[in-house]
């Protein structure tokens, strides 16, 4: 087997779990198969493993019910918050007036952070093993919108204001399966209260609920497993 072929096999095998990778690479070394067959064998196993994860509803919900629509809606909301901030501040930093506009902006910033964090958390905790696919699906609309963003007064990175809390949420979601019921309830109620100003606007309830359901999902999952300790650690394979 050539060194390039073996390198390809080792790269492909990174998608397998540690123990399985060791057994498979050992088997291929022992059998002394051709590079091409080795790569096909490893990729075949990787595809079968990934396909098995998608038998459950969870990865589908995480990818197509949350990652894809969530990133699109949060990008739109990021731009909206940036524009509101720009209108309120104007050219000078100290020209800010504390009033209705400021309160609304503050509410929206908080809402953006809460929506992004809960969305990321649920994405990470719903399907840990397919989180790479979910992340890729959420980055696709980002790339598309970044390439086509044409608002001159705003930097195109305003689209990605949601990214930091979302990544933080995914990270926490991968670490812990659920949060305490009280924390989940406070978060869900806070998000719902923060969306109240938008209730009067027609047509906004769909995006509101599309972004708010992860918070209530967290409440439901915490409610269903109240006996679990403060946080349930994922079993590390």
């Amino acid at each position, binding site marked *: 087997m050539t060194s390039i072929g073996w390198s390809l096999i080792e790269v492909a095998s990174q998608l397998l779990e540690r123990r399985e990778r060791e057994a498979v690479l050992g088997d291929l070394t022992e059998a002394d198969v051709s590079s091409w067959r080795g790569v096909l*064998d490893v990729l075949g196993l990787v595809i079968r493993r990934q396909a098995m994860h998608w038998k459950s509803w969870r990865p589908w919900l995480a990818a197509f019910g949350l990652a894809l629509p969530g990133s699109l809606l949060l990008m739109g909301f990021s731009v909206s918050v940036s524009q509101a901030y720009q209108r309120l501040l104007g050219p000078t930093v100290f020209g800010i007036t504390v009033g209705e506009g400021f309160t609304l902006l503050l509410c929206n910033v908080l809402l953006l952070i809460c929506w992004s964090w809960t969305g990321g958390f649920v994405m990470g905790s719903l399907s840990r093993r397919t989180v790479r696919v979910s992340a890729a699906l959420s980055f696709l609309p980002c790339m598309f919108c970044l390439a086509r963003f044409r608002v001159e007064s705003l930097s195109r990175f305003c689209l990605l204001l949601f990214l930091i809390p979302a990544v933080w949420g995914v990270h926490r979601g991968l670490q812990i399966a659920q949060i305490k019921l009280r924390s989940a309830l406070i978060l869900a109620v806070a998000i719902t209260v923060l969306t109240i100003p938008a209730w009067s606007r027609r047509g906004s309830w769909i995006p509101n609920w599309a972004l708010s359901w992860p918070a209530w999902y967290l409440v439901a999952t915490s409610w269903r497993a109240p006996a679990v300790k403060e946080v349930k650690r994922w079993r590390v394979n």
Partner: protein
Amino acid sequence: MLGEFEYLLITAAAGLGDNAYGAAIREEIEATTGRRCSIGALYTTIDRLEAKGLLSTWMSDATPQRGGRAKRMVRVTPNGVLAAKDFYDTVTRVSRGASWAVNRAANKAGSLL
């Protein structure tokens, strides 16, 4: 009831005894059936049979001929033996009267005479 490939895997593992592990089982299946056995089919089937309690697996120590990598050893459990026996009996029963099975029995009898 077991599937065809599951039966082949259990039978190969049982035949190999203490030397049953991924590469050896694969070689055995390929040699006896003359068909290619992919690593993907092998390891996903081993996992499925282990989840059903028909096989048990563990990682052995690393060996130099495998580049210092461990083997995934396989052992057929008593339930696995029963399931394989059940499959074999079913196939034998259902084959009675089939032309290929009758001819084979007749040929066998002829060769004995």
